[in-house]
């Protein structure tokens, strides 16, 4: 029986890099609590001896030669950037 607190919701929002309003915290706390509560139905199953599945196929490590090849050039890479300067992506200052 989980009970997600508003504080937890704010913490998770920070981890997820989301800014959420007090109103959203309120709504999200209730909705996440409902979903998590529902997800806890999985605890009805004993899975002590069950291996987790990360992928359905029996995948082996896929290796390739480390060879350079043409992909996109700098001009193209910057084409859709919201802000750029001197051939680079421009972001707000990192240090306050």
């Amino acid at each position, binding site marked *: 029986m989980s009970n997600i607190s508003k504080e937890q919701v704010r913490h998770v929002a920070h981890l997820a890099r989301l800014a959420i309003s007090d109103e959203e915290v309120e709504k999200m706390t209730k909705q996440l609590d409902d979903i998590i509560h529902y*997800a806890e139905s999985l605890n009805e199953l004993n899975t002590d001896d069950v291996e987790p599945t990360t992928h359905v196929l029996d995948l082996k490590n896929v290796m390739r030669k480390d060879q350079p090849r043409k992909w996109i050039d700098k001009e193209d890479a910057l*084409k859709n950037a919201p802000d750029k300067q001197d051939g680079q992506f421009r972001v707000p200052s990192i240090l*306050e």
Partner: protein
Amino acid sequence: MSLFDYTLKELQDKLHNKEITVSDLVAESYSRINAVDDQVKAFLTLDEEKAKAQAKQLDQQSREHTSLLYGLPIGIKDNIVTKGLRTTCASQFLDNLTDPLYDATVMEKLQKENTVTIGKLNMDEFAMGSSNENSSYFATRNPWNTDYVPGGSSGGSAAAVAAKEVFFSLGSDTGGSIRQPAAFCGVVGSKPTYGLVSRFGLVAFASSLDQIGPITRTVEDNAHLLQAIVGHDPMDATSVDIDIPNYSETLDQGVKGLKIAVPSEYLAEGVSPEVKEAVLNGLKVYEDLGATWEEVSLPHSRYAVAAYYLLSSSEASANLARFDGVRYGVRSAQAGSMLDMFKRSRSEGFGDEVKRRIMLGTFALSSGYYDAYYKKAQKVRTLIKNDFEKVFEDYDVIIGPTTPTPAFKVGEIIDDPLTMYANDILTIPVNLAGVPGMSLPCGFSSDGLPIGLQIISKHFDESTMLRTAYAFEQATDHHKKQPELGGANK
């Protein structure tokens, strides 16, 4: 009568005989879009100038081509990256992504077949949703009755084919996003085995579940479009290198002696009587065709939705971390510091459902909760996968309904996430197990809405799945009924 009432083979004959041109086909597409898309709202972006130029060029080329898809108008779900053609995933975050840098592998494959891309199709934002109401632009409507949803997340892809705005389309399916809208819109949609179709250039939602697949009006067309997009791709490390069979060659081999499993959980409480009746009638058709069916159990089915939401949201929370407002997408105008810029850009750019799932996934992966939620769900995934493997030891295919009910009304359940999630209860287990599944029309509700029959087969056994579907389609007329857009049902 529309040109799109013909099958792909019939259209190729007409092209060869010069009865029609590729330009005629493309003009048919846009004239239909102009006539009905203000009601259906399937398209986010159109590419008319380029499509018409390409048609002209194809018409000038030799007709001695071998591709069966030559010149056919196709619509592409907006989470498949198209070079130079706006790709938004129906999200405000990507509203300004008008000039993507590369083509998804499936787009390169379609170019080799010379299909003509008509435009990009609406969807639930980042493929998260079952009704198309989570599109940040507008909600696509069901061509059978525009008061109803087309399903989702590939709602635009299914509605555009049902409304004959395009000949066929591509969608993507993470928990039912091709099969459920195909069922709601009365068309044929298939989700291939995980790993069969390259995901390179499919904007990732849940990487261990996502697959691209074809949506068409007939099973035969579905087999041909699937054939064009499958195959190993070095750009997708989960793409599988296997011999690909010729799917259309075995379509007409019939179902005599076919062993069908019908999971009792798929006809249980929650499945509407009309849907159940349509599926049972469908099984009667198979009996008449010489197949046999028995009830089986997929005992962990009831846990699939919970496991799916934990796993898919966890993967989504990691995948959507790339949307940071630095390299592309919309950056918040309010941005102060770098961290502030990330947070504001994401919060302004993402809709409610996307935020909710990122939050759920971040929670399930966070320190102290990882084992209890994420790992637990992965273990339950193993149990669900084992359920399928066990049934497939004794049976060739699994058949049941695609959805518990026909389409619901716009606005009916959008405010209730858990009820919305339960809508995918019959399609989600297929993604968790990685097996192929498809939906085709098997009847209509008393309200005149389509009902879908779901056919599931073993890993990489698309041939048997398609053959089973083809036999049903040949024996029935459900696929011949068409929505009367602009007519009786407004």
